């Protein structure tokens, strides 16, 4: 395998973050708890440098061609996801400083694990070979399991980690079985090679089952129905900043590889996987929204809401060989990252005794205790429901249009109905904030958490009010279907 200097340069963000994670881990071994804020600052600095490296690569002439003998590719699609994922890590660090600082656990481990999860995610979105994608996915997943159980003396956190680990291990098994079936039939693992081979080959049932099992493994990571069962328990049990991160970061990586594997590797079988994804999307939207309606625990409600949003986002994969392609899902994920993280960051804001805002009643009278927080929360809820002029509306508009153009008008109509249904449970929180009596003293937040919330709110409003520059930029990031 011939590796050039350009190959190393194109993977420099991943390599840098790996070194940064190891450094944080080493520093935490020699410094006591008083240095936790320093570790958080250092993590933020490293993530900032990684963002700078990715931004530099976006203008680098060598991008777009396969590197490391075709194992990876750094194209505009990967660069968009890398930037978004690094921003989500930075937001998680900001939301964690106060939360983790109060916990009796080593912060160095936490921040290092966050960076290692990030490394896995960055490698995933650049994966151009089923093996490199799988190894990166495992790196991300193993770090995530430990993060879920970071509060190791809290039984909820430990149980969440156990469930996540066992179900995640089985989903990896399913994915691996699918990969091995595809390899057994094709004898190769590179995505472009697979597409080339299958172009001249008749489809076999065994190959379709292999593709389906790969899809099932990825749907687990996205938390789509019927592989969603882990989500509410893991979201409820994990430390809230980790939940916020899980609701965006690993999902972004999973959407990216789902799109890349099926657009680049299996375009010939579009009719088969397209049908399954449409059915899964419909079931996920309906189940997520209906289940969210029945919840009183806010984290569980938001978990089911994120399941519903996974259903919407899957519609964006259906625009295969239309003028939209993956454009819809890119616009939607840009909006989703900020609005969903923002909601969870506000749940962290209301933290009590290590677990934050358990029930809708915890939001009672928030407007009287902290008007800014209540208004910002309202913006996020409006955006999640898809009300204009917020980023959520723009994201849903592009998704629904994409589904219509791909011939799935029934799915778009269902999505509109489900969005209307979601208003009921989002507005339960809004009503509690503005129309219920205040309980407790006025709330104050840390500067870091406030910064995370305000960044999310600003992005949600700006993308909603002036979407054109973002939307046009994302058009250049779409993977072209062959």
């Amino acid at each position, binding site marked *: 395998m011939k590796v050039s200097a350009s190959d190393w340069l194109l993977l420099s963000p991943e390599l840098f973050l790996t070194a940064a994670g190891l450094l944080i881990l080493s520093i935490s071994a020699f410094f006591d708890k008083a240095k936790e804020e320093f570790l958080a600052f250092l993590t933020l600095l490293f993530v900032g440098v990684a963002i700078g490296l990715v931004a530099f690569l976006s203008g680098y002439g060598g991008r777009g061609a396969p590197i490391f003998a075709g194992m990876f590719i750094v194209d505009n699609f990967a660069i968009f996801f890398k930037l978004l994922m690094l921003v989500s890590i930075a937001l998680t660090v900001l939301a964690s400083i106060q939360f983790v600082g109060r916990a009796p656990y080593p912060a160095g481990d936490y921040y290092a694990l966050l960076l290692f999860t990030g490394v896995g995610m960055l490698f995933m979105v650049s994966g151009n070979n089923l093996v490199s994608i799988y190894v990166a996915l495992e790196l991300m997943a193993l770090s995530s399991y430990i993060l879920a159980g970071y509060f190791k003396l809290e*039984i909820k956190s*430990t149980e969440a980690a156990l*469930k996540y680990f066992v179900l995640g291990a*089985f989903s990896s098994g399913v994915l691996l079985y699918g990969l091995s079936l595809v390899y057994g039939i094709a004898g190769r693992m590179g995505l472009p090679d697979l597409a080339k081979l299958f172009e001249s080959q008749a489809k076999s049932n065994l190959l*379709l089952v292999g593709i389906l099992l790969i899809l099932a493994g990825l749907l*687990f990571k996205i938390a789509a129905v*019927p592989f969603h*069962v882990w989500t509410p328990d893991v979201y409820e049990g994990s430390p809230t900043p980790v939940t916020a991160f899980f609701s965006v970061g690993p999902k972004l990586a999973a959407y990216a590889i789902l799109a890349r594997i099926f657009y680049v590797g299996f375009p010939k079988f579009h009719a088969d996987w397209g049908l399954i994804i449409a059915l*899964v999307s419909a079931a996920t939207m309906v189940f997520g929204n209906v289940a969210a309606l029945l919840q009183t625990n806010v984290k569980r409600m938001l978990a089911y809401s994120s399941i519903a949003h996974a259903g919407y986002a899957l519609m964006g994969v259906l625009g295969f060989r239309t003028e939209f392609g993956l454009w819809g899902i890119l616009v939607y994920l840009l909006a989703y990252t900020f609005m969903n993280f923002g909601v969870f960051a506000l749940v962290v804001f209301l933290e009590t005794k290590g677990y934050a805002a358990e029930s809708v009643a915890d939001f009672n009278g928030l407007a009287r205790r902290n008007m800014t927080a209540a208004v910002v929360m309202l913006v996020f809820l409006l955006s999640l429901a898809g009300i204009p002029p917020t980023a959520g509306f723009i994201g849903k508009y592009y998704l629904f249009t994409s589904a219509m153009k791909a011939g799935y008008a029934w799915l778009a109509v269902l999505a509109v109905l489900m969005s209307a249904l979601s208003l009921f449970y989002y507005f339960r929180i809004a009503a509690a904030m503005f129309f219920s009596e205040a309980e407790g003293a006025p709330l104050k937040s840390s500067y870091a958490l406030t910064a995370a919330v305000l960044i999310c709110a600003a992005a949600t409003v700006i993308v909603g009010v002036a979407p054109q520059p973002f939307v046009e930029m994302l058009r250049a990031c779409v993977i072209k279907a062959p």
Partner: protein
Amino acid sequence: MRDQGAINRKSEIENRKASPRYAIVARASAAGVIFPLSIVAGYLLGNWLGKAVGWGDAPALVGAMLGAAAGFWNLYRLLRALDSGGKRF
């Protein structure tokens, strides 16, 4: 005789204490076996349905997907059964 009876009762209590652990292992093993079997069963049922009704490959794919989902659900039920109910360590 009384001593023997006490020993028997003691061993019975110990057996009862020990049985949940074996039961958990047994249930976990069953879940491990049921998981792949449900995928195979779903695929075979779907395949049969596709051939019987003339719907092509779609029922086989949907069957395998539902089988995988059933396997996950069974595993999740097992994990839920192991929940402590929120008790702290």
